[in-house]
């Protein structure tokens, strides 16, 4: 028995036009929390996909518990007690938690020794026992569509545990969670470690690594840069190694210079499909040259406000004025033309058409205009040239340039493509919803800098973010929303992080 439970030796994996992993060797001890740190596209997920059998390495060997293995499918990985929680959950929405967990390995019982049926009752008991053991509270009879993201993640963890996984891989587990939920998840991970599990954590959030990981491997552009003992390493050093240069945690910005009001929202109320008031009587103004941030815990109506301004959601009451013009009844395209750029929260479902090429996606909001569209025919040359220009200007990286199918691109580059496209619209109002979600430090820094640049050009910026740090970092004015109502609007200088946090929880001063 070797000292290491997982060894990946000299792993190389190539994709068309790119070396995703270049001769990487990592060794993981049993019972440790091992972090993989790197920017988007550094090759973390690829490396772990090979351990979980979704890809096979071009070169190199994988050893599990001192034995050489050829993991050719996730099923085989499961047999080796390897489990993975993917960044995008793989759950059946209209099945219950228990049904999702047993899916594929349903325990079978027989009535009268003859008629086989799924032993849901036994499974539910098993799941309840497991969830108690690791402090993962879930109600196994609830349906996935009725529970929140954090609970869904717990279901994914239970799914692994139910399959008796010993080596647990977490792919960016905190990307979709709120600060409180992150705390809770990190506790769960610690608990799992105490239970003797080996944890591999893919992330680019340094605080998390600092808090729970023992060792940390840093990947950059497909190569292993270093393996560090977390305890003895400063956060800044890890960040520098990851990005390959000095990073600043504080975005440089000049004082704001407010101009005319660009966006005015008056007494806005929005109902959701269940006729429930998600936004109640919200009013605020955003000036040119101002970053107005809406802070709040996820699901308190902030995304609905953005959707209503952009025209994706119906307004129940109230009005939206852009440069003094009431646009409440305009179509989505007319609002875009009037001067709204919108970087949506869900970039894969709304922001992009994943099966289309990068060039087509970059022209997605302008394809119908001259010179892209001439007499009803699209001019591919113009579209391609425009795409090339944006790729260069916004440093959008992909394997085959403008022809790349957007689905094949990394999350960070997808986001760069959207932001580039929206900035090029040269709108007077730019709405950013969670612009840096799931991105690495380098990209975050870059995007925040771009937001400030746009502000300095005199654009009105509406920023909606769950990251309080981000809001404190770049906002000029902060509006805090709780339960669909704006609790407080104040200049960013007049508020401390703690105060904003309290308003977010609905504690009215």
């Amino acid at each position, binding site marked *: 028995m070797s000292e290491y439970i997982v060894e990946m030796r000299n792993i190389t994996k190539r994709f068309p036009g790119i070396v995703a992993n270049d001769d990487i060797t990592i060794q993981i001890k049993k019972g440790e929390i091992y972090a993989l740190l790197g920017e988007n596209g550094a090759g973390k997920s690829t490396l772990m996909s090979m351990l979980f059998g979704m890809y*096979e390495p071009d070169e190199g060997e994988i050893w599990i518990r001192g034995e050489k293995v050829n993991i050719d499918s996730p099923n085989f990985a499961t047999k080796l007690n390897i489990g993975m929680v993917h960044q995008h959950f793989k759950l059946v929405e209209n099945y219950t938690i228990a049904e999702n967990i047993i899916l594929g390995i349903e325990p079978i019982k027989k009535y009268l020794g003859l008629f086989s049926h799924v032993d849901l009752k036994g499974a539910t008991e098993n799941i309840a026992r497991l969830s108690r053991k690791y402090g993962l509270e879930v109600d196994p009879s609830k349906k996935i569509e009725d529970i929140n993201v954090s609970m869904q993640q717990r279901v994914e963890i239970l799914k692994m545990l139910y399959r008796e996984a010993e080596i647990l891989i977490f792919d960016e587990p905190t990307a979709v969670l709120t600060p409180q939920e992150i705390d809770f998840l990190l506790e769960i991970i610690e608990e799992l470690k105490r239970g003797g599990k080996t944890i591999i954590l893919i992330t680019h959030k340094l605080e998390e690594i600092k808090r729970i990981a023992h060792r940390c491997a840093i990947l950059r552009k497909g190569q292993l840069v270093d393996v560090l003992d977390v305890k003895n390493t400063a956060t800044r050093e890890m960040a520098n190694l990851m990005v390959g240069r000095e990073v600043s945690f504080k975005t440089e910005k000049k004082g704001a210079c407010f101009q005319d009001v660009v966006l005015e929202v008056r007494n806005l109320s929005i109902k959701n499909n269940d006729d429930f008031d998600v936004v109640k009587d919200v009013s605020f103004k955003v000036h040119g040259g101002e970053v107005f941030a809406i802070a709040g815990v996820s699901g308190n109506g902030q995304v609905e406000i953005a959707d209503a301004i952009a025209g994706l959601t119906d307004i129940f009451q109230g009005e939206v004025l852009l440069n003094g013009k009431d646009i409440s009844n305009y179509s989505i395209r007319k609002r875009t033309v009037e001067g709204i750029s919108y970087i949506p929260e869900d970039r894969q479902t709304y*922001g992009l058409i994943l099966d*289309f090429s990068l060039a087509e996606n970059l022209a997605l909001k302008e394809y119908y205009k001259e010179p892209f569209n001439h007499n009803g025919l699209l001019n591919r040359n113009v579209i391609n040239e425009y795409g090339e220009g944006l790729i260069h200007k916004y440093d959008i990286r992909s394997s085959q340039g403008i022809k790349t199918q957007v689905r094949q691109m990394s999350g960070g580059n997808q986001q760069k493509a959207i932001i580039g496209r929206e900035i090029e619209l040269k709108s007077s109002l730019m709405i950013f919803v969670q612009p840096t979600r799931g991105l690495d430090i380098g990209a975050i820094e870059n995007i925040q800098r771009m937001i400030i640049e746009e502000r300095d050009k005199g654009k009105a910026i509406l920023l909606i973010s769950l990251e309080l740090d981000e809001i404190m970092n770049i906002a000029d004015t902060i509006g805090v929303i709780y339960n669909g109502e704006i609790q407080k609007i104040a200049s960013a200088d007049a508020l401390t992080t703690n105060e904003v946090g309290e308003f977010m929880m609905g504690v009215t001063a």
Partner: protein
Amino acid sequence: MREVKVVEKDKKNHFTGFVLKLLGNEKWQFLTIPIFLIALSFVVASVIILILGKNPLMAFFNLMQGAGIMPKPSYAGYKSILTDFLTLLNFMTPMIFASLAVAVALKGGLFNIGVSGQMLLGGYLATVLVGYSGLNAFVAKPLVLIIGILGGAMLGGVVGFLKHKFNINEVVSSIMFNYIIQYVLSFFIHTKYIDPVSRQSKYINSAARLTLVNVERFGLKMDLPLGFIMAIVLSIGIKLFLDKSRVGFEIKAVGANPKGARYAGINVGKTMITTMALSGAFAGIAGATYYLGYFASIQPRVLPSMGFDAIAVALLGNNNPYGILASSFIISIIEKGSTYMSSIAGVRQEIASVITGLILLFSATNVYIQHKIRTTKEKYKYNMGKELEE
């Protein structure tokens, strides 16, 4: 013992290598895999024919003879391989249009299972409005097409409208419309246009017919399907339209991601109606060339099965208009040659439908085969590399 194993492994490797050489080139997979799958369906069909105690190779040869691809040993007066082939094209013409109808809808993310109903409506309207009128050929023939297009497009558009306005699934409403059209029209045919002898609608005037029948040339009597040339032209046209036009871009965007398309400012509802109307228009031309070309009358209470076969043809053609030209050719041969096959080889005509069914079944595995080949290729390379090292 060990040696045997090595030989077996070698054989297996050779075989994998051969298959990979055949199907591995991704640039040609759009062609090689469908051909491979069609071949596979013929192999399975052979087994079935063998079980029936007949010679499958003869049966397939008879199929081609019947369709005018291979010469028959003897022909009746005024007939030859050419007349058989023209009959094949005559049958293939509406098939191409119907399949294009399915393909256009699928590009826009919609499943038009109502092609049959749209064909029937287009064909019926053209028959009663122009087919029995005394208009001369130069007016009547274009008019037939226009009415067919309008009838089909209207019905398709309604299906799209219902989906947009009331969120009624297009599959459900199309199937309902199929029934409504089928029975309402058969009521009118029975009460007004019936031929008491044939129990079908009366024959239309030849001026309105889209196929020139019994044209005497080279000592033969031929059927010339005028719509065939149009089918080729429109296949190219619709391909260019989808690839190059603004509306085509919007149709594909809505098909690929309706939420994303809406966000981008595309009017999703309008695009869906356009897509269904366009699809219906193609179905309408299919109806015109079917009822006023291939046939010259309408059989009441029967939906054209071609509208459903078209789904298979479109899938086999990978939803690509050029692919559809090829796949309708193949399916038409099987359908058209079946009569001759049953009379000569004694293989029942229904076997032709079995072959068509098998082709559809296998062509549905296209994506799986692509995936399988990709993974096998990687593994094969890996193994080969290791062996070289050893």
